[in-house]
């Protein structure tokens, strides 16, 4: 049948040969398995990195960026992100243009309109009188690049018998403007239209400069005029009161993350203890304890939030971090308690726990070596998932005015402020919203990854991969 013939020595009996065939897998502890599976999940590592970075941002950030989060600066309200800029100190004094300087400014041929001065504190314009004009309407277009033909914002109506000049001090920014001066006759017909584009130089008033410590207090307006100073940078801009958003995000992060971590930590621990005790004693005791837990679940959170604020005597408009923490802890624990109770009840029936008991293990030993490590995973996962929900709760409460109140920043209260100016200055909402979302996203992903990593059913997969 087969050729060539198989040599006879191939048919020598060998006896049992198992040992050399045994492929030994390295024996790994439960936590090593968990870590191995966690490490393989790239998303989980990224989430862990982001979560750690956010904690560092809030904890170490204020040292690296020592800007007062509560310092208001009316001169730089709702600024977009800026780096440090140099500005000129200007001291405003009433503008009195005489006809000589007026003529000098418009002396060249064909010049109908002239810019005398243009900085972010004031813009001063002069123009040639139009014969037969009775009044001049002055407009400023703030977005000449967008609305090319629109004259824009009406600034002032100037009678023709006054000097044809304009001083504009209305919320000037370092950007392009186009001014239009339209001359009308007595019947209201347009006679002439002058237009000029300009970009004010960055300036800071003497008072603001002295308030911010940029200009020595002993200088008077004449000495300080024209002095160059460097304005502070606002990498994430400023809010509607001119406060630095980066500094507020860092300090707000401390509050938001503190509440976000402390509340879940406390209620997960309490819930674990509660559920563990209920399951350990079991029977009627367990029934009663779980009935209490069911009852607590049915209580409305917001009501108790208000009740605790009242109990702690917190007035409307005041920060109530303690009340918030207490309300979250008092009402938050039942879900963990149920989870741990279920886990412990299940473990109590497991063969290895029975085996340990039969072999003479004391309850304390069984709890420490068999119960606790198996409950730890569930605890860690529920803690990780509780953090985003606590951060949301803080944001929600601060948003409706029951949480952190101004001037103390929290991410929720910053969002609340930001929503008011959302249409004109979206960055004031955007940055705190991103901070919340990023944190919640990171902890959600982390929770998912931990749940997968702790899932014992997946444990076999590691050795083969």
């Amino acid at each position, binding site marked *: 049948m087969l050729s060539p013939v198989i040599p006879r020595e191939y048919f020598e009996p060998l006896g049992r040969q198992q040992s050399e065939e045994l492929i030994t897998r390295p024996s790994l502890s439960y936590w090593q398995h968990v870590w191995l599976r966690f490490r393989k999940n790239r998303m989980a590592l990224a989430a862990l990195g982001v979560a750690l970075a956010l904690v560092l941002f809030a904890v170490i950030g204020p040292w690296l960026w020592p800007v007062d989060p509560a310092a208001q600066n009316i001169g730089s309200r709702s600024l977009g992100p800026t780096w440090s800029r140099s500005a000129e100190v200007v001291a405003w004094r009433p503008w009195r243009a005489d006809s000589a300087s007026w003529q000098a400014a418009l002396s060249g041929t064909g010049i109908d309109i002239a810019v005398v001065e243009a900085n972010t504190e004031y813009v001063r314009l002069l123009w040639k009188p139009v014969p037969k004009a009775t009044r001049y309407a002055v407009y400023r277009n703030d977005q000449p690049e967008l609305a090319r033909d629109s004259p824009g914002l009406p600034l002032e109506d100037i009678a023709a018998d006054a000097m044809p000049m304009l001083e504009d001090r209305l919320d000037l920014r370092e950007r392009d403007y186009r001014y239009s001066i339209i001359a009308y006759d007595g019947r209201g017909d347009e006679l002439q239209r002058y237009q000029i584009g300009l970009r004010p130089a960055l300036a800071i008033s003497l008072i603001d400069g002295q308030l911010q410590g940029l200009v020595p207090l002993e200088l008077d307006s004449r000495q300080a005029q024209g002095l160059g100073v460097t304005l502070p940078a606002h990498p994430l801009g400023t809010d509607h009161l001119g406060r630095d958003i980066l500094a507020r995000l860092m300090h707000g992060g401390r509050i938001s993350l503190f509440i976000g971590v402390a509340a879940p930590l406390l209620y997960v621990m309490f819930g674990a203890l509660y559920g563990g005790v209920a399951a350990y004693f079991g029977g009627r005791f367990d029934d009663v304890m779980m*009935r209490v837990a*069911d*009852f607590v679940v*049915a*209580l*409305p*959170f*917001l*009501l*108790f939030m*208000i*009740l605790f604020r*009242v*109990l702690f*005597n917190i007035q*409307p408009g005041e920060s109530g971090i303690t009340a918030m923490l207490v309300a979250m802890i008092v009402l938050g624990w039942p879900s963990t308690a149920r989870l741990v109770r279920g886990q412990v009840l299940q473990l109590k029936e497991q063969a290895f726990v029975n085996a340990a008991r039969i072999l003479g293990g004391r309850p304390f030993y069984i709890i420490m070596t068999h119960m606790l490590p198996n409950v730890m995973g569930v605890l860690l996962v529920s803690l990780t998932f509780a953090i*985003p929900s606590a951060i*949301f709760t803080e*944001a*929600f409460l601060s*948003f*409706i*005015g*029951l949480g952190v109140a101004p001037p103390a920043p929290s991410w*929720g209260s910053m*969002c*609340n402020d930001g*929503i008011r100016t*959302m*249409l004109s200055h*979206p960055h004031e*909402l955007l940055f705190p*919203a991103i901070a*919340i*979302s*990023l944190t*919640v*996203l990171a902890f*959600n*992903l982390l929770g998912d990854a931990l749940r997968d990593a702790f899932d014992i059913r997946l444990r076999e997969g590691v050795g083969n991969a």
Partner: protein
Amino acid sequence: MQTFLAKTRQAGPLARYIGGRLLSGLFTIWFIATATFFVMHWVPGDPLSDEKAVSAEIRQNLEARYGLDKPLPQQYWIYITSMLKGDFGISYTQKNRSVNDIIAEHFPVSAMLGALAIVFATLGGIVWGAIAARFRNRWPDAVIMFAVILTVSVPSFVFAALSQHLIIKLNQATGVSVLPVAGWGGLRHMLVPALVLGLGTMAYLTRLMRASTLEVGSADYIKTARSKGLSSLQVFLHHELRNAVLPLITVLGPAIAAITTGGFVVELIFTIPGLGRYFVTAVQQLDYTVIMGTTVFYGAFLVLMVLLVDIVYGLVDPRIRLQGRADA
């Protein structure tokens, strides 16, 4: 006689269950009412002390009107009995309005918005979850699950603000009012707020639906159905979908609670005259009767909703509906 016995045996466990739940629900509502009452009375200074320059006479009148001149147990008794009669008292800040009027006027608005949000959330959750499960580990699954995790990571007020911003931009771009930016009126006013309100729940339900579809998909009875010669569409429609949707019903109770709370924010941002916005205003103004009345009302509403959802689930799932019959 035989059928009658069979019927009572069928109805027995469910009726007993509902009875028990109703009782514990009533206890919860009573506890909420009592806790509210006592804490409101522990407040340092009575609510009328804010009133500017009230003469002693007016003050006495007011106290008599709100029942503040009576001893505490009597006040409590009045409070509980009037609440049992469905009378929640008179608002402190709006002197001519009773809390009942406020609830009657504003709750229907919140309820309509919430109902539409639940519809959005449930339909969306089922559809997206089923799609994600059917395309497991392929790009539609990845896209849907990414959207889900993004949705649960962004606070609802940010979504509300952003959608309002988008409506404004849309109206600007088209030059007509495609959708109202805020306010209350017809269905057009409800559409976007309800969608925003239901978004978080939709994401949660999508996740749940995906998991439950996958779990059902690997069940033995699906293999049986395929072995019977059903096409994959028949298997999906007659066996998978039906069984996968069932567990979603159990979380509808908590979902209704979440949507009720979320309604506060959405109503605030879209200036919808719902009870939620009223409640937040009352909280900010410390209008105690309104706070007490609305929280007890909300508490009762939620307890009732959770109970209702449980009963519906019991009726839909034969395993629960017929528990008694299987035991017998």
